[in-house]
């Protein structure tokens, strides 16, 4: 068996003292280590954000509960949302992009390794800054000065008049800092993909994961920056006496909403598109067929990238826009469902006629397909703006977006973990624990988020620390809470799997899944230089060509 690696005969690899190891990790510019750092920091914030969610769910377990005070509750839902979006979802996806993109294009590292490290540490620092807010102000028991304005910090609630003290500033500064990190990573990803592809890897031969991360990075440049701009304006209002969002001086609260959602909507596509990328790599391998309709998948992704920039005000259907504006955003929001639906059909088309292997990555992928379908359809429901006039700001929306983020993004991420963990560590994750994790999480997820739609339809608004008895919301909320704890248990199983398999998992070898992209042609974990000789490719599945020289893809492309 050949391996694209350089071995030095007689060389001894000694274990480094732990201080040196730590120093190596803290000063690394290697995309693989930075990728792992991103992923580990995301897992840390996942645990913290998860605890915040459990606190929310315990408080809402029944009406008029007193588990936490309203002040603490409001900080919990603000921190939960902010943490999960900015310090879990974005970092973990950047982490996978960082790790995989150079490997899949046959490069030795990202285009700008030092910028890569700088961007990671900015992102991590932003997270630390956000959590330092708990210690600021009146200290930990009173939940300190953590922000309590919701993760959107709507004007004028975020203004000095309504948010005195510094809690709002922690929110603003933490996101500004990590936002600059995200822009740095996005620039790096684009430069890497456009400039460092190995010979033969034309733009239409790149793996779909690479394509989708390219689109994602482009969107980051255009989506994160409006938020940064709006936050600079907020700081000017709060500290320099500006009036950008000062309604008493003629300023507009609606302007903040527009700026925020011009960021906020493309942001959720920034989060889901890398998950589409995972699905487009994993489903073909476990169906034993190439992705169905590669060019259409690329076109659909680019189309989503553009159209998603025109739908933002569907988050603002209740603010009193005129009927023409509401109709426009209804149309564009429904329209963006078309390319999204096409992708679901293409994944099913990939499975069709295949020989599906139900390993853990594939189980999570099938879960993704089912749940993303439902999430997309509840999105179409809310795209119909009159329907949204009832559903908006209620638990129906909360159920919808958690369906996308947990049922879609997190399931795809779990699939990615089980699929690429062997490559990153050289060990297989336990299939038994993986299946246990899958079923437990699936049950908990559906218990929580299927049921959660119902209180929304029954009139329960979001962001309330308690509710009235007799509205019919009590039992439903109890079920939702129980499901949350089942999911928490499943996460613990997952973490145990990650740790135990690191020490006791089966050796993975180069290519445990019999896959077709370049990362599977080198060792697990890969050598620090990735490829001893830069590969040359002639098709979209270079390893398929190597394994099937009698029938390579290059004959058909």
């Amino acid at each position, binding site marked *: 068996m050949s391996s694209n690696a350089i071995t030095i005969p007689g060389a001894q690899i000694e274990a480094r003292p732990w201080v040196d190891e730590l120093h190596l990790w803290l000063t690394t510019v290697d995309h693989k280590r930075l990728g792992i750092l991103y992923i580990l920091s995301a897992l840390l914030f996942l645990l913290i954000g998860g605890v915040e969610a459990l606190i929310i769910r315990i408080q809402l377990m029944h009406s008029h509960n007193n588990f936490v005070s*309203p002040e603490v509750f409001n900080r919990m839902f603000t921190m939960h949302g902010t943490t999960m979006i900015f310090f879990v979802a974005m970092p973990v996806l950047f982490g996978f992009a960082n790790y995989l993109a150079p490997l899949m294009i046959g490069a030795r590292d990202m285009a700008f390794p030092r910028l890569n490290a700088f961007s990671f540490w900015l992102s991590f620092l932003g997270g630390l800054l956000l959590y330092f807010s708990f210690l600021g102000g009146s200290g930990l028991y009173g939940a300190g000065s953590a922000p309590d304005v919701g993760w959107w910090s709507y004007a004028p*609630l975020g203004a000095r008049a309504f948010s005195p003290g510094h809690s709002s500033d922690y929110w603003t500064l933490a996101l500004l800092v990590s936002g600059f990190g995200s822009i740095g990573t996005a620039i790096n990803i684009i430069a890497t993909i456009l400039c460092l592809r190995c010979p033969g890897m034309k733009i239409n031969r790149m793996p779909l994961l690479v394509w989708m991360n390219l689109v994602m990075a482009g969107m980051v440049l255009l989506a994160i920056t409006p938020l940064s701009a709006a936050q600079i304006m907020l700081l000017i209002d709060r500290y320099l006496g500006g009036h950008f969002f000062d309604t008493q001086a003629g300023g507009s609260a609606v302007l903040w909403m527009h700026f925020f959602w011009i960021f906020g909507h493309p942001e959720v596509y920034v989060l889901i598109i890398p998950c589409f990328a995972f699905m487009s790599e994993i489903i073909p391998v476990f*169906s034993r067929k190439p992705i169905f309709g590669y060019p*259409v998948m690329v076109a659909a992704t680019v189309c989503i990238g553009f159209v998603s920039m025109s739908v933002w005000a569907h988050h603002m259907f209740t603010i009193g826009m005129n009927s023409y504006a509401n109709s426009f955003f209804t149309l564009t929001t429904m329209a963006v469902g078309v390319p999204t639906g096409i992708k679901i059909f293409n994944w099913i088309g990939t499975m069709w006629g295949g020989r599906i292997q139900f390993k853990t990555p594939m189980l999570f992928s099938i879960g993704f397909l089912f749940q993303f379908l439902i999430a997309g359809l509840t999105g179409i429901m809310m795209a119909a703006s009159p329907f949204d006039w009832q559903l908006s700001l209620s638990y129906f929306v909360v159920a919808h977006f958690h369906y996308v983020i947990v049922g879609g993004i997190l399931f795809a991420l779990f699939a990615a973990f089980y699929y690429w963990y062997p490559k990153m560590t050289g060990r297989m994750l336990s299939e038994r624990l993986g299946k246990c994790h899958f079923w437990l999480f699936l049950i908990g997820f559906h218990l929580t988020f299927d049921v959660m739609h*119902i209180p929304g339809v029954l009139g329960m608004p*979001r962001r309330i620390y308690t509710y009235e008895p007799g*509205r019919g919301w009590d039992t439903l909320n109890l079920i939702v809470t129980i499901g949350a704890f089942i999911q928490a248990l499943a996460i613990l199983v997952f973490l145990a799997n990650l740790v135990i398999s690191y020490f006791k998992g089966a050796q993975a070898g180069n290519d445990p899944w019999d896959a077709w992209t370049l990362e599977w042609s080198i060792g697990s974990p890969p050598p620090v230089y990735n490829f001893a000789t830069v590969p040359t490719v002639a098709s979209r599945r270079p390893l398929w060509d190597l394994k099937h020289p009698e029938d390579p893809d290059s004959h058909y492309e």
Partner: protein
Amino acid sequence: MKSSLCYSWRIALLIFWSARLLWAVEPGGSTAQNTSIFSPASTPAKSIADLSVFVLVVTGIIFLAVFALLLYSVVRFRGRAMDGGREPAQVYGSMQIELAWTIIPTLIVVVLFLATARVIHAIQDAPEPAGALDVIAIGHQFWWEFRYPKLGIVTANELHIPVSVSAHPTPTFLQLLSVDTDHSFWVPQLAGKTDLIPNHPNRMWMDPQRTGVFLGQCAQYCGTQHAKMLLRVSVDGPEDFASWVHAQQKLAVEDAAAIAGRRVFERNACMNCHVVAGTRADGRFGPDLTHLMSRATIAAGAAENTHKNLRLWIQDPSVIKPGSLMPAMKLSDADLDAVVSYMETLR
């Protein structure tokens, strides 16, 4: 394979039980506690409910179709041991299929959009008829101010509006304003929600077709006590509405027995925040108390309007609604009893 079948059964059961739960609480009647969007009592809410059913049917069909395809592919194309490691036919795609599943969804989008646009215009661009009642709703942290400009009425938190019969429609048109942050007026049975945004007046309407009490609450996070900014809309028959209006238009009752309490009220800066029409109290920061006892609840629905709650509220609002902007006035027990007695004369 066993696991995928078990999996689909679990989902089916879950959906079944969820549907049953939803059905169980979706009544046809008008119990005060029901706030389902699917038991509308007013034209906007009904138009929305009808559109929603249409959208649900369309998306339901899409779901069933795609779910069937997914289920079929998972079951039919599962890898079996007897395959012996052979790879299946490597199909790259099909332009005809891609076109089909692009065109059909696009057509569905067009149909849904047209159905929706009709309802948007019907609700938002409805002209205000001559017999309509005008109400101005002003959002505060954490209570509602309601003004009836043509009737000279100012009240708080509990809205009384006339029932509107089709023979002689008397819808209520609300203008929505805010003095501080964003709020949202949501009474699900009467209409979709519309936000109250400072410096951005909004407009909505409702024409309840039956009498009764309809509940709702603020839906846009507005600060600490967003959760307890409740709404209580009383839809009255014509006589009841007329007598309510008549009572609200009067100045505050002057009960000589409550003079001590009134002095406490005026001495302790209460009058700087509250209006009691016909007296010196003319503060606008807090709710109008002229006809406090005509309301079923206090503190925007946070507590029932009883002697005990009233006393507790005045003694220390943060017990009932921590984060409310009314301070505890630190009254002595005697003063407290006196002012509560005074409040209870304000019918």
